[in-house]
């Protein structure tokens, strides 16, 4: 048998495997350190928890050619301004609730999870809530007792997960905070709830808006 060509030699490829793996891993560690300032709370892309004191919107940005969160005027959640520490405690309770109730096994968060129920990334500003005046109360009521509320025309419903009032409020805080994360334009082409200060009657009440919160009629 002829001599093995240099490019087919075992030792060359063993060394290549070690070097390629090592260099890739070092690059990953470098990039991880570079990314952390973007994703920490209060970082470049991820807001501090007290952002829940503000109005949060999601608009197309002509310069970046993508949808980006827009943080607006003061609009405290449940009418109460919170400090950063208080806000973090509330959001954390909400995040814990989403984990303990395994929301991700039906929904997606930031697009990750299961596909049985809608994405929650921008649920705070979803037009389905109808008006910003009733949104907070409707979200809390829905989370606490979703089963008998009409969801859609295909009969898919959310089960009652035993969510308490405190947990529901905290979950709303978490969802509001999540909607302020800069997700590089995901989801695209999203038309958020009208949150302008015009009278409530002017807010567009879409069909599913009524559907989400209305009791089952039959």
């Amino acid at each position: 048998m002829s001599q093995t060509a240099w490019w087919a030699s075992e030792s060359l490829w063993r060394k290549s495997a070690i070097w390629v793996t090592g260099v890739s891993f070092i690059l990953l560690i470098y990039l991880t350190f570079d990314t952390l300032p973007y994703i920490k709370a209060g970082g470049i892309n991820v807001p501090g928890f007290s952002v829940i004191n503000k109005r949060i919107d999601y608009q197309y940005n002509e310069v970046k050619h993508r949808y980006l969160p827009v943080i607006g005027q003061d609009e405290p959640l449940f009418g109460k301004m919170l400090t950063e520490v208080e806000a973090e405690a509330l959001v954390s309770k909400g995040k814990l609730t989403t984990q303990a109730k395994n929301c991700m096994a039906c929904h997606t968060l930031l697009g990750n999870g299961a596909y049985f129920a809608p994405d929650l990334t921008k649920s705070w500003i979803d037009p389905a809530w109808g008006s910003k005046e009733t949104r907070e109360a409707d979200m809390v009521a829905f989370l606490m007792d979703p089963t008998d509320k009409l969801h859609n025309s295909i009969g898919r419903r959310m089960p009652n997960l035993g969510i308490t009032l405190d947990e529901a409020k905290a979950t709303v805080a978490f969802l509001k905070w999540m909607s302020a994360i800069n997700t590089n334009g995901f989801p695209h082409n999203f038309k958020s709830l009208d949150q302008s200060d015009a009278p409530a009657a002017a807010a567009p009440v879409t069909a599913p808006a009524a559907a989400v919160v209305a009791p089952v009629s039959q």
Partner: protein
Amino acid sequence: MTALGIFSSANLNGGQKLAMKYFAVSLALFGAQILFGLLAGLQFLMPDFLFGVVDFSVNRTLHVNALVIWLLYGFMGGVYFILEDEAKHPIVGLGLGNLIFWVLTSAVVIVILVYLLVQVGPGEMSSIWLINEGREYIEAPRWADIGITISMLVFFFNVFATFSKGRYTGIGGVLVLDLLALAGLYVFGMFYTPNISMDQFWWWWVIHLWVEATWEVLVGCIMAYMLIDTMGVRRKIVETWLYIEVALMFGSGILGLGHHYFWIGTPEYWFTIGGFFSALEPIPLVAMVVHAIFDAGVHKMKNKNHPALGWTIAQAAGNFFGAGVFGFMHTLPQINLYTHGTQWTASHGHLAFFGAYSTAVIGFFYLAAQKARGNVWMSGNLPGNGWKWKWAMALLWIGMIGMTMALLIAGYEQSQIERAIEGSTWMGYFAAQEHPWFIQAMVWRQLSGYGFLLGYILLVWDLLTIGKGETRPAQVVETGTH
């Protein structure tokens, strides 16, 4: 050794006896995965089915967790199966390995019962520790995480110590380093943070660097052994290929992690890094196809275990199409903006896990069945022309391709209607879900799932009976020059 054709643990070495236990649980959990998948699939069509009793979230959690655990058990079984033969040394700490099997299996049973019976807890840390972490794929509560980590360390010790006392082969060296990375990575999934971006960033370290890097290499190792053992491919060739695959796999897969960092709050440079490196990810999978087909051809398909060879070739092809092609189809950010979080991912996930991993583990089930019956004949001319293994394989593949294609159609439809047209609101989501195209896809997915179940039943029957009463010893494979 007992008589040919009789199932006896006396035919197995210490590691292989332990492997049989892992394989048995693995095969049972494969069945559980199918069962809960079928229930979850049915709930897409009949939303009131088991509503409030065993909800979709419970079925889905059990479906994906059973998947992770049966594959891990299959891999661990595979490693224990080859270990003594590869290292030429009895397993060091086998007693500890056996103990850990029972500890791990008890933990798995408890976790499954808690998922089924307790399901959810209050929004407190105690739920994370005792019930459910609520993080896809690694939902297992924290106490179980710690148990899994300890078990993995014992498993690692068995492998490391056995190779160290015996001999280190190329396969052994790669395996030891890979298992160290695999066990170490799991730790990155074990913390709580209120920050979902930070949470998902590290969560992907576990999920991606397991599934698209360390698992691939682990399977590369055990399949390398498979080629040597069943076909007599020369070790030098196999190990050189293994190094090439490791270089390509880690070279593309480690930074390919970037394709999960498009939309979770991470900086935009991940578009370029994730897009570029994940575009390279299919290359090692092509290499594996070339390798497997080339070897099978050079050896004129002559090998001692036809079902295992069948599943080996299926593994190369399935890995390439499922992980490579179906992954690449939606990995570039320009496409992924519309496909992320739709049934596209489910389509890719089904074919990739089955193609890359289930096939390899099933191949090992056959290797184990052969050995347990005293290394009987399993080449051509099996009784009934081997109809059971062939039909099991055909039904599993038809079912899987049916599910994959149906989910792909559903994914396309969602990308178009929910995302591109409706703009990703909840109204858009339900507009897509109630569309006849989506519902038809879910019907076909369910029917294909039943076909897959039939394949599974036949597979179990075949594994329990193949080689029974066989009097011919296994075909002798010569170590070739290729």
